[in-house]
């Protein structure tokens, strides 16, 4: 085969329909992130340090001090959604910065040059830059709450519902 024919030759494989492609590509990128975590699960623990500190140490102390009026709501229930939001936000900021600092910029370029769905590459942003389950400490923070027998999500939906303020 001459090189001229190579250029004229159609390249690549049958492209899946765009909706299918979106999910395929998104899964590919997410899978990569999950594999990284499988190689180094200690990352989960290091990321959990901050929310655990907030919930178990500072939260505890402030709950005992009763310094902040939270009405019928227990202090920990008041605190939980905030800590969740904070850990999600902070991970987003720090991983976003990692991309800007060119730590991962080469990888991002490689993805962008591929024919993968641009929209699906957003999960690269979602996974790396924000609260994707595998990579984020908010999962740990919320499981702490479930372990305690109260769901932070339920409280968000009904902040005024009277309930027994559980003590830790």
């Amino acid at each position: 085969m001459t090189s001229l024919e190579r250029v004229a030759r159609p390249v690549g494989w049958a492209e899946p329909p765009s909706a299918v492609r979106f999910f395929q590509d998104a899964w590919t990128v997410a899978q990569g992130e999950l594999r990284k975590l499988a190689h180094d699960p200690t990352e989960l623990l290091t990321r959990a340090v901050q929310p655990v500190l907030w919930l178990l140490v500072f939260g505890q102390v402030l709950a005992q001090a009763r310094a902040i009026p939270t009405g019928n709501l227990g202090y920990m229930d008041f605190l939980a959604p905030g800590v969740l939001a904070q850990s999600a936000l902070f991970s987003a900021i720090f991983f976003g910065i990692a991309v800007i600092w060119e730590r991962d910029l080469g990888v991002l370029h490689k993805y962008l040059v591929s024919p993968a769905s641009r929209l699906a590459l957003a999960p690269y942003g979602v996974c790396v830059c924000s609260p994707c389950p595998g990579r984020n400490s908010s999962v740990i923070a919320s499981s702490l709450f479930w372990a305690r027998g109260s769901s932070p999500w339920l409280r968000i939906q009904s902040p005024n519902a009277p309930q027994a303020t559980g003590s830790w």
Partner: protein
Amino acid sequence: MRAAIETRDLRREFGSVTAVDALSLEVRPGEVFGLLGPNGAGKTTTIKMLITLLPPTSGSATVAGHDIAHEARAVRRSIGYVPQLLSSDGALSARENLDISGHLYHIPAPERRERIEEALRFMGLTDVGDNLVRTYSGGMVRRLEIAQAMLHAPPVLFLDEPTVGLDPTARRAVWEHVRKLREREGTTILLTTHYMDEAAELCERVGIMHLGKLVALGTPESLAAEVGPGASLDDVFTHFTGSELDDTTAGGTYRDVARTRRTARRLG
């Protein structure tokens, strides 16, 4: 004859700075073409436009017969790109990195697995294929990156400073693989480099860029002959870019230096 890469008056401005100025260039199918020039000459900007990461301000270009502005997806399917920055994920193994590339290019599963093993064999990485990439040497990382870019057998390959930060042995190994790849696949390769010996060694034709303009074009030998008898490509480079005495631009800006050293450090 249909060109593998063709640009017509390609131009890119960043604010008041013209990074690439009226670049008209033709790269023949199967050719290894070197784009030379000092830092800030517009080499990387040119490549970024050709691989559809950056829209040109004006002018047009085709890559493998597809227009970069109107057929971006077709262009992406037909090219491989190895960025200057590290593009393999250090926290994954070589196989996993290749697997992600294979998926992103929608290579069907049986063929994907076959190609991954073949790519590892070709690049001499079979034994270490399951090790994390961050344990690799700089030369191995570059070879893996090239393998990733070549997994879908694109007819056109872009290498942006493929040997930056590598020691001479690793550089030779990378050259060797680029040459073998080209022989085996007939791939058209456009590479940028600062190193004149690299261009002389690998490229059939070189274009020298300076301040966004193409100032010289030809085979390494013809350019050397143009400058004078016994001139090396280094002399050619200095002759056309005149950067020898101009200390304010030589060696790039602080940002360029920081970036190059960072890349070099990561490649180990």
